[in-house]
Every structure is written in structure tokens, then in C-alpha cells.
């Protein structure tokens, strides 16, 4: 459930040029799900930064985040103390059981897919993973994927390859998919896949818990708040030009 809380910074370390790992400790909600996010308040900034859960257990939450602007840049400088957090935001992914599925991530959008892959494996799914990055030095989670024992492929824009062409090359366009990444990537994937799937979306948010209507999106049959009814939606519901 949603909880407004103070959590203690346990770790805030650099993973690569623009990407950091933040671990916060405290009395976290016990029902967190892959695909959910938290609004992390950076002192001196009005609005929280919506950061997806990269990992969580009974007493901590982990975020892997990219420097996207002044707020996240400031966040990288905080190495100790407490942060105000609204935890347990959003719906999270709906998990399949006993199925062969494809997990596709792009850039920092790969962060929420790690706990998803773990949960899918626990649900006895066969999981194939395609992650894409702009260039090799931006690679994330390669070691984690090896340790998880899933089949995985990594593509690099700089080498003329991407997750969609890789999916088609591997003939995996019939697999039910989960996706998180840049909007053009997810739109292209949705188009190219012959199967159904779920996409985790983002936009600029106000509150992160459904009060301000700042992230309300028109879907094909309904209107939904990305922060509350989302951020994960079935691909069939999404009208991509409404996100541009």
C-alpha cells in the first residue's frame, strides 16, 4: 500500500557515467510489486522524483536511476541521512505463470525489469530478455542477468542494432512481452510484436499518488492516471501519440 515515510540512505553509488544506485532502508511496505515506483523527495526541490523499484525486500528499497536533470543530479550528492519518500506508487506488472515470455528494456527502463524477471521465474515462466543501450559503456545488469540464468541478448544503438530488430531476428515476436524504455522503443515494439504485452509508461508527474491529475492519459477506452492506474498498461490500450 501507499505510504509516506522517511527512509535512511544506505548506499548511493555510481554505476556508470550517468547512472546511480540508491538503497534506502526503513519500514517499507511489505506488499511492494515489480513495476511499482516511489516518489523520492530531493531536499530543495518541490516535487518528488518518480523512481522505479529495482529491488526491494522487507527492510529496503533499491533504485537505479539516471541523471535526468537538476533534481536527480542533486540526488547523486546525498550519501547519508533521511529522505522523504512516498512508497508503493502505481499498479506494477501483472505476472504470468507457467508461460514463455519476453522481457524487453531500453536504457534506464531496464531498472524495473530486474525484479519482474525474478518474479516471473518464481512463477515458473521461461523468460527471455532483450536489453538495449545507446553504447557499451551504458550497459546495466549484465552480471545480474547471468546470475538469474535467463536467456538474454544486449543490443547497442551505436552498433546499428536495437531491441526490436533483435526480437525479429530471434523470431520472438510471438511471445507475450513486458516492456519498459523510451516511448519510441515501446511504440515500435508494440507494433512489431504479434503478441500481447504490457508497457510501463512515464510522463512528468505532480504528486505521484493520484491527486493532481497531472499525468492523466487518454487510453483507447478509458482515461487513467499513469501514477495510479498505471504506470503499466496493456499494449492494446495505449494510444502512443497521446504521450508525445
Amino acid at each position, binding site marked *: 500500500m501507499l505510504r*509516506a515515510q522517511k527512509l535512511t540512505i544506505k548506499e548511493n553509488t555510481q554505476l556508470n557515467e550517468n547512472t546511480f544506485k540508491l538503497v534506502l532502508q526503513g519500514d517499507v511496505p511489505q506488499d511492494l510489486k515489480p513495476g511499482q515506483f516511489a516518489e523520492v523527495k530531493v531536499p530543495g526541490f*518541490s516535487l518528488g522524483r518518480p523512481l522505479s523499484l529495482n529491488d526491494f525486500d522487507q527492510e529496503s528499497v533499491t533504485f537505479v536511476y539516471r541523471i535526468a536533470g537538476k533534481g536527480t543530479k542533486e540526488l547523486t550528492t546525498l550519501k547519508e541521512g533521511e529522505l522523504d519518500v512516498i512508497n508503493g506508487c502505481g499498479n506494477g506488472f501483472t505476472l504470468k505463470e507457467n508461460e514463455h515470455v519476453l522481457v524487453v528494456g531500453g536504457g534506464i527502463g531496464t531498472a524495473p525489469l530486474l525484479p519482474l524477471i525474478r518474479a516471473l521465474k518464481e512463477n515458473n515462466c521461461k523468460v527471455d530478455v532483450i536489453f538495449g543501450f545507446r553504447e557499451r559503456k551504458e550497459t546495466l545488469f549484465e552480471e545480474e542477468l547471468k546470475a538469474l540464468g535467463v536467456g538474454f541478448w544486449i543490443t547497442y544503438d551505436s552498433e546499428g542494432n536495437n531491441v526490436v530488430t533483435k526480437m525479429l531476428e530471434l523470431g520472438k515476436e510471438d511471445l507475450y512481452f513486458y516492456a519498459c524504455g523510451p516511448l519510441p522503443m515501446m511504440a515500435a515494439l508494440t507494433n512489431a510484436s504479434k503478441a500481447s504485452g504490457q508497457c510501463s509508461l512515464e*510522463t*512528468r508527474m505532480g*504528486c505521484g*499518488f493520484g*491527486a*493532481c491529475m497531472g499525468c492523466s492519459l487518454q487510453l483507447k477506452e478509458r*482515461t487513467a492516471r499513469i501514477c495510479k492506474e498505471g504506470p503499466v498498461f496493456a499494449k492494446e490500450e495505449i494510444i502512443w501519440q*497521446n504521450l508525445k
Partner: protein
Amino acid sequence: MAELKVNLSGLELKNPLIPASGTFGYGLDFLDFFDVNEVGSFAIKGTTLNPRYGNPLPRIAESPSGMLNAVGLQNPGVHEVVEKVLPELRKVYMGKVLANVSGFSVEEYRECARLLDQEELTGIIELNISCPNVHGGGMSFGTDPASAVEVLKAVKEVTTKPVYVKCTPQCPDLPEMCRKLEENGADGLVLLNTWLGTRLDLRTGKPILKNITGGVSGPGIFPLSLYRVYQIAPLVNIPIIGCGGVSSASDVIEMMSAGATAVELGTACLTDPLCVPRILEDLQTLLKDLGIDDINAIIGRAHK
């Protein structure tokens, strides 16, 4: 414990804290955080006759001490609000609300207000002639006293409850506007809605908000709104609800000292969903330090 009860046109509030329209939904999104019965009252999301999606995304930008929104009056329409939303709210909320009525024509304001006036939950009709994020309605009524009076009179004809008018800082002559509203039957004033502004994307140089402009809110505007309350309070004899950047117990005391009987909390509800219980606790400490045992004693003390 200091007495916090205040009275708005006969409606008794257990405290002067009122989450502002558009920052508290219909109350239901805060149930995860605290018992919403702790609020003095709250203003429901701006409601129009017909359902509205509002403006395209992005609708939100940040400022150094606040935020901008260009939501554009998204709401399910008054019929759904009356038939589905308010019955849900009645199950969990025992108080009364400020029913925020918005519109694009005098007729729409009148019909929307008529329907909300019949609701048991409605304590006050809050006439929103100040939304900066819609075109052809909202704020255009709030910048011209003749148009504002026309809407007010039409709404007063069909309502039995007190009508408070939420004004815009974009009004070129706010003192004149407020005098005219009082003369024509306004029971109270809400000063003020958001201030028109914009932000540009650092990389592209283009506006962040798809609507180009948005309403600026948050602690950064507090002195601006406070001054307008200070300026208007001596000119009228109807209650004022102070609104604009209030985010702490000391802000509440300043706003009430300037002449407000109660305050609306906007951005504070979005950036700290627990702001109402937090401010209530701080308010007791602060009033004790100041040696004040009834908060009514500070209303308008700036002018005494």
C-alpha cells in the same frame, strides 16, 4: 490546546485548513495516508457540467519553490460526481465540502451549481472563475467584473448555500472585482487561484507544458497571495479564505493575520500528503508560543 474552530458563513469548521480544489481530488486518494476527517473542510476537484479530459500531456512542470500545472479541469462531469463519486465520499467523510463549480458559459455554471447545491455534502459553493488552464471559460470570467457578476447572480438564483468566489491574480483590478462581487451577493472570497506562468525545456528551448502556460503554485507565491489578502481584507465585510503557497503553520498564522478566516492548502497537499496533520500539530505548538488560545483572535490583526 488552542481553539481552532472557525466559522464560514454559518458553516463551522473544526479547524481552518482546507485542501484546495485540484490538489485533493474528491478526497478518496488521501485515505491511504491519513483520516481525511481531520481537515476543516476541502474543496472538491473543479467540476463542470460535462466530463472533461483536460489538456494534453505534459501537464506538470516544476519551479524552484513550487510547480506549474496545466491540467485543464479534468473531471468526470457533475452527473457522475453526484451519482457515483460523492456517495463514495459520504461513506468515509463526515464533514462538508466546498463544491468547486467551473464552466464555460453562464448557463453551465448555473446548472452545475444547482445540482451540487442539492448535495448534503455541499457546505459552500466555490465558484471557480479563475482557472488559468482552459480557453474560453474559467479565468475569462474572473478578469472582468461584469462577467464575474453575471455568473455570480445566475448561480445565486439557483443555490441556497453560501457562494464563495475563487478569484484570479490575473484580474487587472482585484479590489474593484472583490467590491463588485460583495455588492452582488458573494458570501465570501477565495484569494487566490494560481498565477499564470511557463517553463522552457533546457535542451529544446520550447515550453515544457503542452498548453504552453500553466498555473504557478507553491511556497514561491505565498508572499504574493498574502499581500492580496492583506490588501482586500479591509475593503470587504465578507469572509476570505486565503490561498496561495500556504505550506506551514506560520503561513497559516500570517494568512489569517492578514484577514483570512481560513486557508486553502494546494501544492502542499501534493508534495506532502500528510501536510494537514503536520500543520495542525505545528499550529498548536506555535499558538501556544504566541500565547493565543483561540485562533479567531488573530483574524485580521494586521489591520487592528
